């Protein structure tokens, strides 16, 4: 192959300008996308009066770093507690999703059982099920059944938020992992089985270690989805101290205690902090992430 010479079509200079243009376009686009967020960042460092100046200033006159401290000191608005809550809930749901989705995917990918394909079709169907259809019954369910069984409700606890994630964690995760598992050759399974390994061993010691990109993808999607989840905590949690950040921010926005306090600068600061963990995680794991999506065959 290397012996064949092919006349090079495009001369060097056009490619360089084409490339430069591409860079310019991409960087411009990235800046436009980031602009609202940059405005939010600069607004978070302004005084409330500065926010009304016209023309709007891109940078604050004096950065009010203490806004970020004030954020944590608001009476009756425990931002710090909300942040903690979000971390705990999100970590637990991410763990639950990753483990139970891979277990379920294993069942779909590696075994034959009656009704398997019908179940998988149903699973795909739930991908398009609008969640509003089940919201009210779910609420009633999380109250009536536990009260009947143990005598107290699960409303205003984190159980309604965390429990579903340990039961398959959503169709998307199971789907992704099942596609991925299908592409791992069965010879490894067979070899292990001949050596007397049980299904558990195959799952934990063979399949999972080979699935790190897909697991990372599932974990990241789960983390992002749960960190920003708004509707479910809104419906299921009633005590301020148990809110995750998403509801807390909304509470901060509305703050019924004293509607006359302009909170925009604090709300911006609160938003900036809330975006930080997902950004860090995405930035660190993006290659894994894309690899996982690619290898899972989701595109096909």
């Amino acid at each position, binding site marked *: 192959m290397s012996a064949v010479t092919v006349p090079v079509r495009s001369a060097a200079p056009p490619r360089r300008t084409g490339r430069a243009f591409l860079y310019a376009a991409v960087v411009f686009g990235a800046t436009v*996308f980031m602009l609202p*967020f940059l405005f939010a960042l600069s*607004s978070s460092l302004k005084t409330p009066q500065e926010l009304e100046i016209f023309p709007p200033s891109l940078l604050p006159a004096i950065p009010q770093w203490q806004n970020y401290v004030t954020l944590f000191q608001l009476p009756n608005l425990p931002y710090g507690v909300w942040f903690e809550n979000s971390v705990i809930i999100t970590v637990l749901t991410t763990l639950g999703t990753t483990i139970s989705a891979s277990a379920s995917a294993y069942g779909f990918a*590696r075994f034959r*059982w009656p009704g398997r394909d019908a179940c998988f079709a149903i699973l795909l169907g739930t991908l398009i099920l609008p969640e509003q259809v*089940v919201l009210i019954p779910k609420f009633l369910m999380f109250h009536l059944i536990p009260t009947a069984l143990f005598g107290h409700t699960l409303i205003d606890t984190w159980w309604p938020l965390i429990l579903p994630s340990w039961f398959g964690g959503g169709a998307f995760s199971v789907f992704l992992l099942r596609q991925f598992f299908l592409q791992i050759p069965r010879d490894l399974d067979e070899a292990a089985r001949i050596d007397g390994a049980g299904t558990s061993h195959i799952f934990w010691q063979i399949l999972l270690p080979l699935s790190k990109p897909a697991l990372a993808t599932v974990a990241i*999607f789960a983390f992002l989805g749960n960190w920003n989840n708004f509707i479910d905590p809104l419906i299921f949690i009633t005590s301020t101290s148990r809110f995750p950040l998403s509801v807390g921010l909304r509470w901060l926005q509305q703050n019924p205690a004293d509607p006359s306090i302009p909170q925009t600068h604090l709300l911006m600061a609160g938003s900036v902090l809330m975006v930080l963990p997902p950004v860090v995680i995405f930035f660190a794991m993006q290659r894994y992430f*894309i690899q996982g*999506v690619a290898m899972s065959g989701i*595109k096909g």
Partner: protein
Amino acid sequence: MVQTAVAQQKRVAGSRARRQEAVAGLLWASPWILGFVLFTLGPVIASLYLSFTQYTISGVPKWIGLANYVRAISGADALFWPSLWRTFHYALIMVPVGISLSLLIALALNQQLRLTPVLRTCYFLPSLTPVVAAALIWTWLYEPEFGPINWLLWLVHVQGPKWLADPSTALNALMVIGLWGSVGGGTMIIFLAGLQSVPPELHEAAQIDGAGAWTRFRHVTLPMLSPTVLFNLIIGIVGALQVFAVSIIATNGGPDYATWFFIVHLYQNGFQDFDMGYASALAWIFLVIVLALTMINLRLSNRWVYYEGESK
């Protein structure tokens, strides 16, 4: 005799192995199965029942048959059809524009530019922003008198409209927010993944045949990418039809119902007016529409989606 016995033994052993496999498979898949029954199937059936009742939480469900459905479809609920058309309008624009932009960005980010990780994060950032924050940021950007957007327009001597406060511009303004928050997100990532799995040999072969970049895109990249496009299309349509939070937080469904989408209408009826029975009926109508659209999509996809080969 011996042969039949052996054959029989094999069959018995075979069927026992198959039973063991079935049991194991069911056990492993049980988390999802149980979750489905508890958190999806049960509630779905319950909501179907509720849709035939009049129920306001503080009372007992009262059976009224098809009355809720009749009320919706007959136009007795003056906002039902407008909110439905409005939602379709929104999806009809958001989905093609969104997918095209996502693809464009994915293509650009696939060119081995320097700082790609940073750039990718920049494009992905909006989709990481919580809706409350995004809505608030954009509300300020769109502020008619003191906001940056109208300021930029004022610099070029254009009188900016009142954006989110004006019924004729609110929907478009909201679409921009929606695009901003979704174009660089999951859809783009999935396209990136799809692009990276297009075999480079195909590109090389096309290049050797003298194909330029555009031709290569049309005849190599796009066909190879078509399953990904289909996936993003289906998920995109379902997602766009469910537009809700940004409307509630930024414009409250207004002004003059300009951003009153179907799910906003459902939420209003269920959680503001407490007509839970009617809201459940709306939810079911929505479910049927979504199912129908997905079926149509899948059916039509045979014409334009190219699969490399049946994988199993």
